[in-house]
């Protein structure tokens, strides 16, 4: 992008920079090639023996399909969306809107944020262990849906809270001031103006949290267990989901089960891709209409020049539609 035309340089310097360029491209290839190999490999392995009936037949001890596992994963996702989505979004709202310096909320906001960070750094298997000992064994539940949802929610709440807080902070101050000037009550303006503006960012965070939730295996093994069919009980019977199929069936003696493992991997990848593409579309759509796309080009510089007024006052070239993301250089 920045085509840097070097001044006449000594041969060694030129050679160094050529090697440097080659190495950066090599690094890119070394990342992209396995990524592409992984995606294509998963699809190819599943596609060669794919049958659509996998989607609507039940799993049997000898083969069958993955209907209940797919439904189970979707149920887990919806439950996590409801539980973690509510709590995470509300926590994010609190951290972004309701903390005041000098008040109790201001004092506790830093420890609360740290707690959230610490929680997001917890290895998933450790949370799985906690769920197993405290909920499954301790509370006398069995391996089932409810402990799985609780543990998965604890995993993704910090993530949702963080994205919510960040997107609320990006709502322009003018919007809030405008709402105040129109005489809206604080709650009403929060709901109708602030949250509405921040919604795309919040939804993106929710979708990515869902992508995390649907791909987890380790915490589910010891909270949800596994079963061939959907159970009727929330806390007493084991629950089916897709990742278990991948984890266990690939080294099963039967070929049918191998196929099911590949199929489950393919379905998981498709779900994750759908979530990612959806979040991308939301981001792209909102950027097209928001003014943040235009201000993003003049993002405040980092570090030493952060408060340099001459930089902040740099004019933004307005080249019309289609050029919003052009760098200012």
């Amino acid at each position, binding site marked *: 992008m920045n085509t840097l035309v070097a001044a006449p340089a000594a041969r060694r310097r030129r050679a160094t920079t050529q090697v440097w*360029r080659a190495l950066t491209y090599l*690094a890119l290839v070394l990342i992209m090639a396995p990524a592409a190999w992984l995606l294509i490999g998963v699809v190819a392995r599943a596609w060669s023996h794919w049958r659509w009936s996998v989607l609507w037949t039940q799993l049997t001890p000898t083969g069958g399909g993955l209907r209940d596992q797919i439904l189970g994963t979707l149920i887990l996702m919806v439950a996590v969306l409801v539980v973690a989505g509510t709590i995470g979004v509300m926590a994010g709202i*609190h951290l972004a809107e309701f903390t005041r310096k000098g008040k109790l909320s201001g004092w506790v906001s830093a420890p609360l944020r740290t707690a959230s960070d610490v929680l997001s750094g917890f290895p998933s*298997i450790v949370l799985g262990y*906690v769920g197993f000992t405290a909920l499954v064994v301790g509370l006398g539940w069995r391996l089932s849906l409810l402990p799985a949802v609780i543990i998965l929610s604890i995993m993704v709440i910090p993530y949702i*809270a963080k994205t919510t807080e960040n997107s609320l902070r990006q709502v322009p101050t003018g919007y809030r001031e405008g709402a105040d000037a129109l005489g809206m009550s604080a*709650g009403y303006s929060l709901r109708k103006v602030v949250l509405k503006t921040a919604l795309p960012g919040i939804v993106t965070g929710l979708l990515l949290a869902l992508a995390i939730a649907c791909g987890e295996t380790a915490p589910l093994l010891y909270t949800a267990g596994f079963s061939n069919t959907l159970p009727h009980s929330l806390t007493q019977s084991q629950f089916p989901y897709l990742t278990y199929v991948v984890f266990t069936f690939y080294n099963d003696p039967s070929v049918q089960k191998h196929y099911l493992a590949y199929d489950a*991997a393919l379905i998981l990848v498709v779900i994750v891709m759908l979530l990612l593409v959806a979040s991308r579309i939301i981001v792209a759509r909102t950027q097209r209409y928001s003014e943040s796309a235009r201000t993003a080009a003049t993002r405040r510089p980092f570090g030493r020049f952060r408060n340099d007024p001459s930089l902040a006052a740099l004019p933004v070239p307005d080249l019309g539609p289609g050029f919003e993301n052009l760098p200012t250089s």
Partner: protein
Amino acid sequence: MTTVGGVAGSVPATPQSAALSKPPWHRRAADSIRRNEEAGWRSVAWVAVLLPLAALVFAITVLAIKAWPAVRLNGWYFLYGRTWTDGHGAYAATVTTDGVKHIQGAQFGAWAIIWGTLASSIIAIVIAVPLSLGAAFALTERMPTWISRPLGFTVEILAGIPSVVIGLWGILTFGPWLANNVYPVIADNMPDVPLLRYFGNPHGSGEGLLTAGIVLALMIVPIIASTTRDLFAQVPPLPKEGASALGMTDWEVANKVTLPWVRSGIIGASVLGLGRALGETIAVAMIGGAIQQIPHTIYQPFTTAAAAILTQLDGAQTDGTGFYVATLAELALVLAVISVGVNLVARIIVNRTSRVAAPLGGA
């Protein structure tokens, strides 16, 4: 007179009319809801923001209580010991030492596990950081948006792929490929000197430490690369252009201007990746072989703390005294302390970067 307030539904014309016409009950209710809406938001948000803290305290308490007997009985041996056995089988006698019931002969030294955890994460970091840096440079500095955007999206997809799927690919496709095509070449050409001997034969079947490290690297590349890419995009163009106007080559601009500008941010991102690598479970359990040993060559099976908890918790429950499960809680506690510590360090570094001025000109 009375119709003014009622029909128009707006502010009453005069104070008298307000007193005369009391608004209907539903409007009063709506008004009251509107007045108290903020209080509602506030109280619900207060409860919600306390829940992560509550969950954290809950998790740590559960682990600590559960691990306490193991901490007392295993002592420091847990951190350096090399024998890991739950005693002489399920039919062995139950004995009580220091008030902790356990199976006779039980001895838990987790050095091999801790070693495996650190080794695989270090391999992953050593591979992932240079690759991410190079790729981020290529994406931000050298490519038009129409190429770099889809490539960036591919990296994002890589971040979203479930680790169990990556594990499946690693154990069925990537590991065997490495064992057939790459490892023999390295192993056969390694001189038999200390340190390098570690890369020598036997090179195994692709199920082991090096494969797990490489796959872990692939899993943390998205974290490091995307953070680094964002950091590079935040370096203002003027210093870079100034540098190249002074006659600096691409490499010199990168080395002298861009990298110093974002150095601590990159360190923070790398440590964040390290935290993820330490806690990764499923992929390592599938690819690493989950055999509890310190491998003699870098290609051999090993296990990590996360993988050990995953693979052993089921069997641990046959220990009727609960000591094995308690030991796994201790392992979980150690793992949690390490990865939470690493994460906090990373966050402190990242937070500091966004405050302190960039070190330009060797400041």
